[in-house]
């Protein structure tokens, strides 16, 4: 693992993250030395107790976190739930796991189960896990404050939507405090107008002259004269960051001159930080800080790993005591460098030692992985440009066929992995194919699978599946615009399946390809086996198999094993948040066929249209064409000739753009012919059957009773009776069965050759 990096020290002393909870994020920082007490502002914060939102919003370096840390210290930690947010928290599962974990520290009713529910079903946080959390909170009685620090790092529309819900439904005793550098999208203007907001902004956070003086007193600097204090307050506008800066750079002699110059100069804080502050330090300390600047937060052990030395813990403690823009948590374990300082250091590091940067990131990635913080490890792996490491970490956090991936972070990581070598990496290409297929972007998925095939097909992933099998499998599932290729891939996957679960899944893919190829009977056999072998742990594949089985059985005229299973499978898909997936659409198609065979073509139309709504997102998919053809046949059944023809046209549009549509091409042609053939159902007596009579007769042939036919066609029972009587007369028959036989004879006679 970490060879030659002072191995004893490099191994973390204890896990940083357990069950997805990074402990360091839940501990507020300790107050820095010389921090000014801001009791007025504390009063303002407390006043937010019964409003919807308490907002602390100001740019970097205004002391937001310090203010909140003072509040925690003053009022006692037992009342506060704290979360320090970072970029990885854009993932709802991670965000809410930490919120729940923070609350569990002060609320006995928020249990381990409530916390883990957040990770278990990330797609259902809004309607399952969050209400559960709110429920657990409703039982308590004491006031509690939830602080979300650095909210701007995690904010996305998805996160805001859930937080808005939390804000709305939480018990009044839970005060929500959001600390951020840019105003959140939580309807702040409306809250402000309704008097439902308490906000502490930059102007309130600025130090006044008394506070400036107090600040320097607290640091232990010899007393400032009022003029000097005034100058500094003026120059900095009370912005705490440069004041702290000035305190560091203040020489023992010639203070007045320094202050004069400092006040007169117009250099930005970061400029001072990148040069003057660093010049204050001895070379070793300087190098140390530059190297660890790649990290967002750190402990002694992590710093040792990154710098390849020992004794970082002691050095960090010294730096914190010297007020060097580093704060520490109350446990004295995790250090947080101030954002501006970090940025300045990074600028200097990139400028002076650019080739060292990837190495540092790689060391950090390895330490963080061993410590259990996979998200942070992945960020560093990507920054280190180590494609192999990044690929392994990203792939390990994607679940192959599950909807509950770490979607937001995966998307972010794949976007960052955009340099040529990363784009060529086969394992990453497979991950990209999975992500594309989950987003129903089948063309992109196919392209990425081509890249994936260039890799070592025997390479195993974390679950022990060879790359070749995974590619074949995904290709046969998503390759629904090239049926021939999907068929071949599926056969490959079936042959190479490593265990019975995957064998069943591969059979489902094969069954899908066979059905689309027009091999209804073979598909029926294959899919019956598949349904028997796939476990409930793979709900999407099971649903796809069951739905396709229903369609295959209908097309082959086989008795239906699938029909009784359709509803339950649809429920399960809804539960895992996959009700807009291809599998869900196929279940609807099967449901439509079931309705039709039960004599309810109108009901079938409803289900088929719902399926088309889902499939329309994938305009180049054979499934979409299949759906249109099923719709066309059903429209024809209820006498909507033009509607049926339009559906066939839509199917044809899809077929024209698809490389290989299997058996659908022939089906479309046959249906079109039947619809456009002159309906000259001439009878022996020379009388033609009317359109309506044909429609009613067909429904009767499908097994519908007269009343049912009336319902389906929205006509009266008597009208149906008279159509049937007329039809029987024209056909020269007296029974329904004989009429059906004659109709089929006439159909055969008018069919094209």
């Amino acid at each position, binding site marked *: 693992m970490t060879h030659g990096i002072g191995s004893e020290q490099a191994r973390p002393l204890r896990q940083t993250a357990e069950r997805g909870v990074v402990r360091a994020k839940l501990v507020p920082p300790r107050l820095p030395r010389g921090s000014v007490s801001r009791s007025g502002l504390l009063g303002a914060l407390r006043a937010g107790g019964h409003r919807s939102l308490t907002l602390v919003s100001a740019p970097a370096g205004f002391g937001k976190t310090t203010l909140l840390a003072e509040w925690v210290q003053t009022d006692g930690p037992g009342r506060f739930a704290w979360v320090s947010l970072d970029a990885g928290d854009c993932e709802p599962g991670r965000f809410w796991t930490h919120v729940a974990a923070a609350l569990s520290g002060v609320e006995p009713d928020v249990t381990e189960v409530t916390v883990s529910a957040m990770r278990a079903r990330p797609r259902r946080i809004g309607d399952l896990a969050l209400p559960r959390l709110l429920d657990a909170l409703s039982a308590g009685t004491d006031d509690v404050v939830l602080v979300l620090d650095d909210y701007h790092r995690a904010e996305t529309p998805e996160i805001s939507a859930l937080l808005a819900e939390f804000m709305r439904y939480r018990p009044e005793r839970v005060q929500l405090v959001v600390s951020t550098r840019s105003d959140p999208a939580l309807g702040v203007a409306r809250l402000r107008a309704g008097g439902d907001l308490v906000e502490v902004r930059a102007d309130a956070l600025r130090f006044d002259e008394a506070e400036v003086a107090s600040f320097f007193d607290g640091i232990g600097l010899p007393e400032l004269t009022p003029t000097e204090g005034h100058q500094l307050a003026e120059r900095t506008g009370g912005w705490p960051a440069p004041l702290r800066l000035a305190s560091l750079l203040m020489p023992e002699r010639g203070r007045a001159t320094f202050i004069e110059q400092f006040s007169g100069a117009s*250099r*930005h804080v970061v*400029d001072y930080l990148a040069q003057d502050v660093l010049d204050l330090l001895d070379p070793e300390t300087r190098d140390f800080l530059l190297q660890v600047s790649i990290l967002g937060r750190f402990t002694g052990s992590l710093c040792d790993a990154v710098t390849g030395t020992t004794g970082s813990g002691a050095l960090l403690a010294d730096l914190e005591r010297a007020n060097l823009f580093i704060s520490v948590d109350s446990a004295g374990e995790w250090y947080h460098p101030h954002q501006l300082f970090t940025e300045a250091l990074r600028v200097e590091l990139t400028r002076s030692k650019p080739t060292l940067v990837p190495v540092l990131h790689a060391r950090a990635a390895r330490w963080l992985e061993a410590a259990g913080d996979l998200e942070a490890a992945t960020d560093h792996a990507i920054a280190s440009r180590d494609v192999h490491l990044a690929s392994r970490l990203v792939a390990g956090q994607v679940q192959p066929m599950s909807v509950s991936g770490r979607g937001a972070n995966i998307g972010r990581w794949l976007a960052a992995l955009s340099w040529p070598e990363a784009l060529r990496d086969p394992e990453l290409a497979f991950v990209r194919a999975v992500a594309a297929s989950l987003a129903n972007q089948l063309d992109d998925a196919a392209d990425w699978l081509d890249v994936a095939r260039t890799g070592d097909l025997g390479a195993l992933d974390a679950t022990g599946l060879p790359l070749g099998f995974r590619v074949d499998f995904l290709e046969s599932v998503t390759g629904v615009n090239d049926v021939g290729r999907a068929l071949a891939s599926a056969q490959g996957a079936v042959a190479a399946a490593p265990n019975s679960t995957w064998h069943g899944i591969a059979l489902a893919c094969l069954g899908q390809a066979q059905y689309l190829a027009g091999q209804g009977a073979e598909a029926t056999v294959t899919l019956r086996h598949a349904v028997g072998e796939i476990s409930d742990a793979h709900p999407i594949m099971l649903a796809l198999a069951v739905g396709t089985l229903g369609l295959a059985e209908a097309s082959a005229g086989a008795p239906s094993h699938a029909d009784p299973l359709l509803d339950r499978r649809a429920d399960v898909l809804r539960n895992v948040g996959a009700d807009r997936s291809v599998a869900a659409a196929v279940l609807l198609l099967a449901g439509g066929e079931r309705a039709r065979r039960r004599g309810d073509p109108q009901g079938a139309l409803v289900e088929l249209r719902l399926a088309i709504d889902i499939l329309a997102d994938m305009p180049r998919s054979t499934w979409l064409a299949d759906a249109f053809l099923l719709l066309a046949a059903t429209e024809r059944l209820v006498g909507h000739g033009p509607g049926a023809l339009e559906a066939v046209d839509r199917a044809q549009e899809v077929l024209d753009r698809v490389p290989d549509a299997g058996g659908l091409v022939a089906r479309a042609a046959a249906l079109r012919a039947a619809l456009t053939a002159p309906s000259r159902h001439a009878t022996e007596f020379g009388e033609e059957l009317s359109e309506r009579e044909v429609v009613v007769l067909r429904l009767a042939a499908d097994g519908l009773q007269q009343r049912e036919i009336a319902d389906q066609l929205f006509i009266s029972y008597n009208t149906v009776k008279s159509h049937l009587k007329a039809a029987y007369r024209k056909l020269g028959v007296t029974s329904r069965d004989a009429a059906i036989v004659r109709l089929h004879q006439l159909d055969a006679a008018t069919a094209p050759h």
Partner: protein
Amino acid sequence: MNDVGMILCTIVVAGELDSRFGDAVEGMTLTAADGRTELVGTLTDQAHVQGVLHQLFDLGLEVVSFTTTPDGRADLPGVR
């Protein structure tokens, strides 16, 4: 090389910055004077612009003004 679609950006921030910060901000050229710093550079597209603004935000820099010109002309000095 096709330069159509590139955006020539001029960003002015409050406070003076040393030119070393230019590399940190996507290779833009810095000129500091009168309590302000002007950053000039050619950016690929809007996503790139947003990235630069984000970096300035991270550095705690206050953006005073921001102007762009589409840079599709080959006769500009220094542009190939």
